[in-house]
């Protein structure tokens, strides 16, 4: 063991960490717990109301719970416990995770949130559907955009015109 070069130690550390990436969950829970606790402690205790339970009590309990669970979970992981990744009909756990697709999907979704104001729902919605289908591996370049556009326009018509739930129509509203 003493003869290992720094390179292999690094690699060992990396693979050790990869094995135990669930520790990240523990860290996140811990951070969340601290966040809840700090937020609870900044509440104005003057308005506490009556009795032993004020606005900060429940957050304090939840925050402490988060910290405790974070520690317990980390201990469990270090002892070799592993959370079982969820299986499902469309899920192939034998394949390595394809994080590129996930990032792409999340990006497309975020794009929808950003674009819906300036370009309107029909355009943003069509881009969302098309982008998501593309990210998930659909490559019908002439069919997909048309399906996406039709779906988006139909949804717009049903919501905005038939039901009166307002959705932004796009930059050309009122111009034509």
């Amino acid at each position, binding site marked *: 063991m003493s003869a290992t070069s720094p390179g292999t130690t690094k690699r060992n550390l990396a693979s050790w960490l990869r094995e135990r990436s669930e520790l990240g*969950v523990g860290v*996140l*829970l811990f951070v969340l717990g601290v966040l*809840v606790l700090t*937020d*609870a402690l900044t*509440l104005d205790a003057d*308005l506490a*109301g009556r*009795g*032993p*339970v*004020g*606005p900060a009590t429940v957050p304090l309990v*939840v925050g402490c*719970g*988060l910290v405790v*669970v974070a520690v317990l*979970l980390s201990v*469990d992981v270090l002892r070799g*416990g592993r*959370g*079982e*990744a*969820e299986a*499902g*009909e*469309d899920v*192939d756990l034998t*394949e390595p995770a394809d*994080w590129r*697709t*996930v990032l792409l*999907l*999340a990006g497309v*979704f*975020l794009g*929808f*949130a950003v674009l*819906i104001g300036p370009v309107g*729902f029909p355009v943003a*919605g069509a881009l*969302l*559907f*098309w982008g*998501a*289908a*593309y990210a*998930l591996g*659909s490559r019908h370049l002439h069919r997909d955009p048309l*399906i996406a556009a039709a*779906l*988006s326009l139909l*949804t717009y018509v*049903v919501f905005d015109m038939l*039901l*009166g*739930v307002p*959705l*932004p129509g796009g930059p050309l509203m009122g111009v034509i």
Partner: protein
Amino acid sequence: MDSLNSLIDGFGTALTPMNLLWAAVGVLLGTAIGVLPGIGPAMAVALLLPVTYGLEPTGAFIMFAGIYYGAMFGGSTTSILLNTPGESAAVVAAIEGNPMAKAGRGAQALAAAAVGHFAGGMIGTILLVVLAPTVAALAVDIGAPDYLALMVLAFIAVTSVLGSSRIRGLASLLIGLTIGLVGLDQMTGQQRLTFGSLQLADGVDVVIVAVGLFAIGEALWVAAHLRRTAGKAIPVGRPWLGRDDVKRTWKSWLRGPFIGFPFGAIPAGGAEIPTFLSYVTEKRLSKHKEEFGKGAIEGVAGPESAASASAAGTLVAMLTLGLPTTAVAAVMLAAFQQYGIQPGPLLFEREPELVWGLIASLFVGMVLLLALNLPLAPVWAKLLRIPRPYLYAGILFFAAVGAYAVGGEALDLVILLVIGLIGLGMRRYGLPVLPAVIGVILGPAAEQQLRRALQISDGSVTGLVNTPFSITVYAVVVVLLAWPLLRKVIVRRRNVAA
């Protein structure tokens, strides 16, 4: 007997061709709109209010009842097929219903839900006819300490959905409780975990949490591990409920109403907690425990039946006390007032024709709903045969529409995505998502009742156990907690004796 006679008169009103037509139109419109993302029953009823303006009151309310039940059923359809519950009462249906749909048993899940709605609605409405005055009198005696006791009971029940790893289940529950903390504190109006954002002041809607954790989280998780080789479509399977299915579910259908109805009738009951309690009960009692989480049909049948019966319970409080216990009831109350009718203690005397016509049309509407939806179930289920990229793109699309349509705020979309990413992480590391959703439902409710009870008792802790009802519930809780221990003792005794 009096109410029976009145009910028969009511059927006379409800079964006139015109009123029958309004009931049918209501059921159809309600289902069609309830299926749309982001539109729950309250929204559906509010949106369709103008449609009823032209009608005379009886016809309008008969149509209303159809819309209400139709919208509730439509909500569970998307919940089962697309994993995107449109309202909080349909959240539980997604847990078992969606895996069933994925496994090609969508038609069965929908049929179990449809029959569940029918059974729940029927039994609930019968209870409404028989018990309305009694229940109404009891309902007002239920106060904050009693609610709190019920919440404690529900929290005990959570332990049975924590999953194989207790610690991971607890982590999930705590994540849910944390999300539930976000928003203005009910009692003092202070902001908690809102980071100064007004949009967060009312908290994160449980529907957004459920859609985020279920639909978005699932879509992202599938994207990470998409089965690229197989490409086979979801099998359609048999279109109807098989004998086995019925054998497994008939008890669930009948049990649901007895959990749902009382919760609907009490002022702060709602439908979320009874659906969840029904789910837990079914899991406990099922002979197929191992199937739970992977598509157990009882887990659809029971909660749906409970949800529907709780809707009937809601009407008890509204018709007899003028007390709107849910958002839908509030909208209906407003509609009553539109016609110059004030629901309340005098309604049954003043407008017997309307009330009994409405109650009779609930029965009629239920039959129509079942007749409409049973044949439709296999048709809906075929929807899932579209290619995977379109299916998941569609789920993302409709989840986004639903989140945006509610308030027209882009921030809601970002919140939805963040919760979806949490859902992804939870799937990756084996944190069950159900406890998180339960945490969001139970946490704020329990805190509110606890603090309200203490406020009413002026801070004295005895205010938490000063009613017979709450003491009874706590006794049940103690027995439940001590049961494993007691059983051990009994078994040991028996062994010693033997």
